[in-house]
């Protein structure tokens, strides 16, 4: 592996409220090289989003170390972290401010991080995700689900980060827009050497986008695979085998 961009070691995350304790992540670890695309798949509720949120300092981490370019990350994360690492959240409704127009969603991070040529960047970012200029002054509730998702992707890309954490970035998109967004992400990675960590429940999307992946179940990483192994349906654990066969479509019981 080349230079390690992001490393997660023995990560533990525990949520507590009243008598309820949820050990959402148990000893998860992986390294992602600069320019690599790393996938996380797994059961719903297995801790995939929590891993990404922990990298951003947004989860109650109870153990383990997360490093960016070899340096352990301070808590809370400094502003320079969010310049280098951007996240696209799973739930675009919750992550877009309801009273901010698309224009404001995109221009605010540019202003905060002191970017020039803002006008040009906003138009470019919207074009990249297949939204025309007519969407620029709309509010989130005036957009369809997939349009909101694309605004969230545009917001992450506009800061030109080195690392993108993508939580189900295309699960709300139809096949044609999904293909466009995946091609865009692929192209940016090739052109700018970006590093991705991508969560998806769609094995075909992960096979297409990621060089390596882990499979999570119940808070733990149960298996690590290469793209070649996934494509050849060479899985070691029963759970991964089940995922592969369920991906074929619906079969009546």
């Amino acid at each position, binding site marked *: 592996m080349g230079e390690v961009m992001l490393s997660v070691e023995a990560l533990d995350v525990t*949520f507590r409220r*009243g008598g*309820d304790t*949820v050990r959402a992540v148990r000893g998860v670890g992986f390294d992602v090289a600069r320019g690599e695309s790393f996938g996380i*798949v*797994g*059961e*719903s*509720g297995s801790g*995939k*989003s929590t891993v990404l949120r922990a990298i951003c300092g947004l989860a109650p981490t109870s153990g383990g170390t997360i490093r960016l370019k070899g340096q352990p990350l301070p808590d809370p994360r400094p502003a320079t972290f969010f310049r280098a690492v951007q996240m696209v959240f*799973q*739930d675009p*409704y*919750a992550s877009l401010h309801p009273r901010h127009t698309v224009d404001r969603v995109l221009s605010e991070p540019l202003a905060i991080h002191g970017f020039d040529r803002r006008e040009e960047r906003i138009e470019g970012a919207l074009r990249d995700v297949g939204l025309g200029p*007519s969407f620029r*002054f*709309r509010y989130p509730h*005036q*957009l*369809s*689900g*997939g*349009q909101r998702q*694309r605004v969230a992707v545009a917001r992450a890309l506009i800061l030109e980060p080195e690392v993108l954490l993508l939580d*189900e970035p295309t699960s*709300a*998109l*139809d*096949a*044609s*827009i*999904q*293909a*466009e967004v*995946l*091609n865009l992400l*692929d*192209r940016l990675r090739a052109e700018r050497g970006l590093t991705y960590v991508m969560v998806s*429940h769609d*094995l*075909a999307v992960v*096979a*297409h*986008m990621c060089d390596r992946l882990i499979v999570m179940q*119940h808070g733990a990483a149960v298996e690590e695979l290469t793209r070649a192994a*996934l*494509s*050849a*349906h060479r899985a070691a654990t029963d759970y991964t085998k*089940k*995922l*592969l066969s*369920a*991906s*074929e*479509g*619906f079969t*009546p*019981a």
Partner: protein
Amino acid sequence: MTTLLTVEDLRVTFPTRQGPSEVVRGVGFTLGRERLGIVGESGSGKSQTGRAILGLTPPPGKATAKVLDFDGIDLRAASAATWRRLRGARMSMVMQDPKFSLNPVMTIGKQLMEALKFGAGETRAQARARALAMLEAVQIRDPERVFRAYPHELSGGMGQRAMIAMMLVTEPDLLIADEPTSALDVTVQVEVLRILDRLVRERGMGLIFISHDLRLVSSFCDRVLVMYAGRVVEELKAADLGKAQHPYTRGLMNCLPKIEGGVRPLPTLERDAAWAR
């Protein structure tokens, strides 16, 4: 097959900066006690079609139709009281953004109990057991904890399943499910579909299944409507989705990545302005 829902010339319009924008433009179909899929491009009007059927077009949007008939009831003329009787009890919708449609300051359990509207000879404990059983049926691992949890304490897929549970406890005659399994891993997805399938086959529920997942729709539904720019451009048997005629539908099938690997970059669609006419 008995017809449950008839829709003719449904239109939904929103005022925008550029003038009125018609986002659903003359949609028509009938639904029996079957699984009808709606696929189509992002922004093509799938969700707005579903909402309009339930009278939930968000203001200042306006919905009109030549016919909008649910089991002999003219929905266009439905009073507030009629809607209260119908929604939840006889027709329900699983919204595309589950966390948005769940009440953020109320526990999942409390919301489920409200949906159940227990009473009529049922004790609180019995209703609670029914709610927990439904959470278990949608493959929630620890239903007791989820029952006590608030929406923000759930993962994306758990929120989606809580929402489905809520819509199903009342056993409606018509369910509109808008991307109901988009946040679920495939093994859980299959279990949720089995529940929906059972309700259609055993209880004769009518299901409108909005999804962008073509593989899923072609294996799960009976019929499919393909929408493009606010219109139905093609209607086919779900199993025949691979033999679609419309260039949009055919293009869609080519855009899908494959587990076994394929071309890079993925094929995309060259949209033709004529499709929107």
